């Protein structure tokens, strides 16, 4: 079992506590922030709704999100890849991303249809 399993297990506690996805205010998102958050989707799914394997970011509380990102930045949290992303972001960007993802509704992401070949 790896450390991320533990992370995933206790992380469940943190979802939905402060977030109110129903009230998500889309208009408050600058296109700057949307694009930056959008680039996390390759690993974390559309709007942070991972299909699996990586943590879901949608609905994380800002405080938890910021703490994790700061820890990645400082090298205080084991990571395979996140330190490289977190260290490239500014404090402001992390705060904005925390707010953005806290406002995303948790939904089940889909898989594309397989085509026989």
């Amino acid at each position, binding site marked *: 079992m*790896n450390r991320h399993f533990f992370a995933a297990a206790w992380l469940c506690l943190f979802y939905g506590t402060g977030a109110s996805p129903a009230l998500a205010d*889309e*208009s*408050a*998102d*600058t*296109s*700057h*922030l*949307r*694009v*930056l958050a*959008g*680039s*996390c*989707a*390759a*690993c*974390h*799914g*559309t709007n942070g709704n*991972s*299909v*699996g*394997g*990586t943590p879901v970011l949608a609905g994380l509380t800002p405080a938890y999100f910021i703490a994790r990102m700061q820890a990645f*930045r400082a090298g205080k949290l084991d990571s*395979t*890849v996140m*330190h*490289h*992303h*977190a*260290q*490239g*972001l500014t404090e402001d*960007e992390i705060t904005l991303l925390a707010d953005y993802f806290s406002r995303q509704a948790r939904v089940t*992401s*889909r*898989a*594309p*249809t*397989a*085509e*026989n*070949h």
Partner: protein
Amino acid sequence: MQRREFLKLMSAAIAAGMLPTTVKAGQARGRVVIVGGGYAGATAAKYLRLWGGEKLEISLVEESHTFISCPLSNLVLGGSKKIGELTFGRNGLDHYGIRRYEHTASFINPEQRIVMLTKAGTSLMMPLQYDRLIIAPGIDFVWDRYPALRDAAGNPLTPLRDAEHFGESPQPRIPHAWKAGAQTVALRRQLEAMPDGGTFVMSVPKMPYRCPPGPYERASQVAFYFSRHKPKSKVIVLDENPDIVSKKALFLRAWNELYPGMIDYRPNNVVTEIRENGGQDGFRVKTEFDELSADVLNVIPPQCAGDLAQGMDNVDGWCEVDFMTYESKVVPGVHIIGDAVSSALPKSAHMASSQAKVAAAAIVALLSDAPPDPQPVFANTCYSFVSDKLAMHVANVYRYDAQKKIMLPAEGGGVSDRASEQESDYAQWWAKNIWSDVLT
């Protein structure tokens, strides 16, 4: 600060486009046509709807029925993936109200803002009108720039230069397999048919080309297959570049540890001639330094922006764009995204999808009479597999530099310490997540 000064600064900032833009979904109006349904084009279509709201008319033109992922396709050569596992439909995008056309875009009239569509096997032409056009043409191959295919005077050489040997046919004798699909499968079959003790030779073009670490991942995958099934066989990499282009230390370490003595890497090696092997199977391959035999030969040819972008490319064959909007510097109203773009950015799937998102956000702004974001920032990662269960990454955040007017890597990026099983898992999940993000 006094109020007047503040206002002055404000208007200067607005004039310089320095303020972040807030665009309400549903405000954008107009017709956007996207040509090309790969990682870049499909992403643009989806995100135009998500960010642009219901009033945008969005059309996606892509002639091929299926989407076949280039990422992970080297694993088909290694034997741990089947091409069918990388093959998807685009109908997962239909619920966004995107009109999909399985047509060929034959030409563009930028003055009248029309793309002309044709359908294979018919003579019908269908014009599509646009306010903004996105083209995501991917890459094409420049066979004339492949040294072995031209004579000393630079004229194309004819002997082997036919569809039987090279090119886009499904099963040429020398497949490129650099667009995932039939040729990937053809190359895998050749490797399977090769006797133990044979030699696989691959040639790598000068940068820039699609997927910088891809050739070295391919060498690793073929070596993985050989090590399990044909341990007396060899992999020879003839690289036109002076060194391994990406993740050098990681690849060298993996080759040493996993496939000792199997991969013969030769930098600065330009293939100058390819001949039949005197009645036997395989080929004779000449470089400036050596002559060698190849039982299976894989030429990754020099590349340029996909056909559709012809006339919008520079002398090197790539398309120059404004990195805030991805609008072509040659043809106004046309945005170009993905591997076709001229830049120092790695030509990766993640990069293509990020560029698509910048372009989608910018077009939503432009069609809402708002200024586009003047400082785009996004993340990029490329994973490479060195076996069926070991992978490693290179990851960076890229940030727009207003002075240089290009995207530059931010500090803090880098590569894995070593290839690991954990990252192989993550790389597989990366694929599942990006497929979901791009195609549903």
